[in-house]
């Protein structure tokens, strides 16, 4: 009888433990790429990718820990089991798909060609022999220049980070910088009157979230159903409206005010509505 009681107790504890302990996944992101992910003045991690991850975690019943990781190290870390999800504006490429598994594309991003304001350069003049173009190493911008434009006589200069490329552009050492459209817009906003977007190149680039090859933990279906739910309720479009357009400082203020709705009340839709309402002029 006593043994039965103990067994029952253990069974109850186990069941309780299983119900209470949600799976926890480590999300890796290089958090210095506004507006997809960046660190606010007060040190909070925010951005489109990260809020989408938080919302999906709530909808699908898992916990996440967001860990700032150098972009180049995210895929190696996932392969080594040091993280579960890569959410850092990853372009889906065949090369990467050999070593990790991607979610459905969640974002279409083309490449912007940024030049010094008043330089009078258009795409035709930029892509001509003798021109020097900059891009961040390992990004689609640099691959695009390498594959499409270097054969036409353009020289590619690679930089560790995007802001360094912009600095060299301002210094006059290069003629243009190629980078994803949204961070480019952010740069133009910050260097008002000094740089401008000369052209947008349709590279057909798509972003995906990534997990270990073959998705051994079964995370991708959760991500996909979470994204679908966000889209169905309209929260997805509201998050896009909030993150792509307003100045970073304004987004940070709105985020700080609204984030309890997401993290405490666990309501992604009302959270997204709050963000957009706060950002209305």
């Amino acid at each position, binding site marked *: 009888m006593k043994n039965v009681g103990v067994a029952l107790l253990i069974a109850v504890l186990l069941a309780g433990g299983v119900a209470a302990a949600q799976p926890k996944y480590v999300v890796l992101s290089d*958090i*210095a*790429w*506004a507006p997809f992910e*960046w*660190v*606010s*003045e007060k*040190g909070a991690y925010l951005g489109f990718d990260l809020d989408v991850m938080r919302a999906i975690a709530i909808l699908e019943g898992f916990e996440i820990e967001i*860990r*700032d*990781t*150098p972009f180049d*190290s995210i895929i*190696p*870390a996932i392969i*080594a*089991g*040091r993280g579960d999800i890569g959410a850092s504006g990853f372009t889906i490429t065949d090369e990467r798909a050999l070593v990790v598994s991607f979610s459905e594309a969640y974002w279409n991003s083309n490449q912007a060609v940024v030049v010094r304001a008043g330089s009078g350069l258009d795409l035709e003049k930029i892509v001509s022999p003798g021109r020097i173009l900059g891009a961040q190493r390992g990004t689609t911008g640099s691959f695009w220049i390498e594959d499409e434009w270097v054969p036409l006589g353009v020289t590619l200069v690679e930089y560790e*980070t995007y*802001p*360094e490329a*912009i*600095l060299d552009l301002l210094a006059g050492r290069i003629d243009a910088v190629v980078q994803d459209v949204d961070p480019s817009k952010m*740069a133009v906003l*910050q*260097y008002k009157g000094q740089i401008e977007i000369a052209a947008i190149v349709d590279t057909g680039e798509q972003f995906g979230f990534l997990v270990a090859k073959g998705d051994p933990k079964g995370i991708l279906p959760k991500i996909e159903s979470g994204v679908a739910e966000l889209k169905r309720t309209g929260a997805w479009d509201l998050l896009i409206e909030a993150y792509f357009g307003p100045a*970073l400082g304004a987004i940070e203020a709105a985020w700080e005010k609204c984030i309890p709705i997401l993290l405490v009340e666990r309501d992604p839709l009302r959270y997204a509505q709050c963000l957009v309402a706060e950002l209305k002029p």
Partner: protein
Amino acid sequence: MNLSAWTEIAPHIPVLLRGILVNIELLLGLISLGLGVGVVTALVEVYGPRPLGWAAGAYTWFFRGVPEIVLLFLFYFGLSQFGVPVSAFFAAVLALGLRSSAYQAQIFRGALQSIPHGQMMAARALGLGRVKAIAYVILPQALRLSLAGWSNEFSSVLKDTTLAWGIGVVEVMRQASYIRARNFTLTLPIYITVALMFLVLTYVGNVAIGLAERRLRVPGLEGRR
């Protein structure tokens, strides 16, 4: 870069200071690990039995020969393959600390070998055992002699701590990139500020080592006043 950029930097200084605190923690961890392992390695190389001496030599050869960033990756990603999931901070202290121990071992080895052999003979003649002679006679002098070379290693590893971002330790360079990501225009002033912080730290550290050198000096031993 204009003057207004410098006033814009002011509110970010606390963030950078928080970052450099992590570098200082890394430094303290790695340099004490390097000191402990380095002294032992040097002693083994100089006084240990042949095979152990070879092992110590191989150890310093490895840690002096492999680039720091590779060591960081080996410790952070490599250890987890063997089921030891070390944190990024701990992996950085281990990788940079063991690397530093190899360099420090060479500093101490040179100092140990510079103590005239007559001292060992004299100590033994006075009835001290070999181990005691090393511990009480040779090593205290050798450590004093090492300080000048050691200050070099200190200055060098202090700056190496910025490499820890490579495996995700959020130190001062990472804090700088956070600020830069939201204020492109501050790129140069931010890095100049970081440079100044390191200059101050190097200065303070070397002054402290210089003071220690003076305090610990045995008159007549180092051949200068």
